Structures are given as C-alpha cells and as structure tokens.
C-alpha cells in the first residue's frame, strides 16, 4: 500500500477533527508487530535456556567440563563476526534513511558475507567435533556410550541450540536477499523502509541470541582448565 492513502477524519460532538489510523501505511504498527514477533523468539529461546539450566542444575560439574572442551577461539571469532555484522546492518539502514540507497545495498551485501563466514566457521567447528566423536547420533552421543549424562545433555542441547541459531542465520540471509530485491524494485526506499527496519531488527535479535548462547556454552567452563580447543 505504498501509494497515496488518505486517512479518514472522525469528528467529535464539539466539531473537533481526529485523524483515524488506518491499517495502511502504519509505520509504528509494523514496528510494533515485529517487536511482538521478536518476543516470541525470546520465549522460544527462553524455553530452551530453561531446559539447559534444568540439566545444568542437575549436573553442574559435567557441564563445566563439557563447556571447557569447546573451541573458544572459533566461538569467539564468530562472536566478533556477528558483532560487526550487526553494525553493517545498522549502518545500512541509516544510509537508506539518509537517502544513500547504493550505500545501503553495499552494507546489506557486507552483512550477507559476514553471515556466510559465520556459517562456514560453524561448519568447521561441528566437523572438528564430529571427528572427536561428538555429534548427534554419533560416537559418544549414542545411548550405549559411557560418557556422563551431563555431558551428553550438554552436547545435545549445544547442537540443538547452535543449530537452531544457525537456521535463523540462514533465514536472515534469505530475508536480506529478498530485501535487496525489494530495494531494486523501489518497493523499499528512503520513504518506505519498514521492511528494512524490521529485517534489521531481526538481525539484531539473531545477534542477541548469540550474545547469550556464546557465554553459556563456550565460557562457563573457561575457568575449569583446558585452553581453547579440544
């Protein structure tokens, strides 16, 4: 509904005019809706963190040991990559609002590139873990292995949550490609950028989830001993 929409006017008994908010062209409504969507993400990951904390309470020592065996170097690199990508995303939106469409598109491409690098690093990490016999349905994660319960649960949750986070990253890449298409079609422009605004918000919540996933998995065992790597 990007074309001319003229809002209605309601008149009260004193004859004062009041603008009626229509569903068309409602920037704040779009923003509110997306924030509400993000609250569902909070509840979803909140539920998973709850499950994680549940087993952490039952097996505190094993969680620390399992955490210590994760690769903190790669995890930390990914943290920084996501951090920078949040910046490029934000700057792109800023450029769009200031009228610099070309710069905005460049920034989106940069964000996509960083997202792909993130996934590649994640892939290396998972491969290394697979080689150590720690992967879903594989090696020490099988029911008959004698690895302690706490560690099995830690890694089970680790693959689930980082996997689901990675899935969000992939969706984010898809959304950004779509956004580029919409920008090229001039459906998103310096005057109508709610889609861009919301995809930027999405990217921030993906980052935000990582802000908690990273320390809970990689860092809680950092003091337990063992340097980074397996």
């Amino acid at each position, binding site marked *: 509904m990007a074309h001319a929409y003229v809002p209605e006017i309601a008149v009260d008994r004193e004859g004062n005019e009041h603008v009626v908010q229509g569903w068309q*062209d409602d920037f704040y409504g779009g923003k509110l809706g997306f924030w509400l969507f993000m609250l569902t993400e909070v509840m979803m990951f909140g539920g998973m963190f*709850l499950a994680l904390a549940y087993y952490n309470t039952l097996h505190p020592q094993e969680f620390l040991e399992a955490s210590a065996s994760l690769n*903190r170097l790669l995890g930390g690199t990914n943290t920084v990559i996501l951090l920078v990508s949040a910046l490029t995303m934000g700057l792109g939106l800023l450029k769009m609002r200031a009228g610099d469409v070309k710069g905005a598109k460049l920034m989106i491409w940069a964000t996509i590139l960083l997202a792909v690098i993130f996934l590649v690093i994640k892939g290396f990490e998972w491969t290394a873990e697979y080689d150590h016999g720690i992967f879903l349905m594989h090696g020490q994660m099988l029911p008959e*292995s004698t690895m302690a*319960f706490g560690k099995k649960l830690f890694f089970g949750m680790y693959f689930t949550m980082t996997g689901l986070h990675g899935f969000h990253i992939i969706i984010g890449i898809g959304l950004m490609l779509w956004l580029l298409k919409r920008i090229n079609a001039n459906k998103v422009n310096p005057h109508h950028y709610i889609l861009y605004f919301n995809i930027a918000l999405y990217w921030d919540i993906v980052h935000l989830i990582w*802000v*908690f996933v990273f320390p809970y998995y990689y*860092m809680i065992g950092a003091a337990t001993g063992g340097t980074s790597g397996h």
Partner: protein
Amino acid sequence: MGTNTSVNYQEEKAVYYKVLAGLLLLTAITFIQPHLFMAQSTFLAQMLIAVIKAWLIVIYYMHLKGEKLIGAMVIFALLLVLVFFVIVIGVDVSHFQFKGESYITEPITTGAAHSATPAHH
C-alpha cells in the same frame, strides 16, 4: 509516519561506532574474565557481561530508547521468562528429591543396572 524525519547521519553513525567499541570491549572482557575477576563464579560473571551487551544492543542498535509501549512489552516478556526460571529452577529442580532412586542422575549411588547399559555384550 513512514517518512524520513530528518536523519542526522553523522551523529547516529557515531553512536553505532561507539556501541561497537563497547561491545568489542565487553567481548574482550569475556575472554579475560576467568583469569581476571570472579574466577569462582564464572557463570555469574559471564551472564552479567552478556546482559550488559544485550542492553547495549537493545537500546541503541534496536532503537528501544524512548519506546514506552514496546519497552513495557519487552519487560513483561522478560519477567515472564524470569518467573519460569524461578519456579522451575529455583523452586523445583534445585529441590530435586529423587537422587537415589532416579534414572536421570548419575548411577553412582544406586541403580547402576538401570541406567548404564553395558558397553560389551
């Protein structure tokens, strides 16, 4: 509403970079924290840093600053998650009463026959 209400490009850009610097600094602190402070409660320290980082992101990158309605909604959702944690973790699991007879904790005390399937048949 969707229109361009005078973007102060340079100023907003400066904010983005400042926040980036802050986040990078906090990430660095994440790594040296176990050797630097609160080494006995790494978990708590790490979560504290994460909360500060999240705060920066939400307020500046996600522009929540000044959003009264949305801010209240976010706080409501967070409180709800907090309550779930308090009840499930604080009230229930931390008072786990079934250690001896349980299948789900380590089979050290009793019940070894149930939980640890022998590796060799």
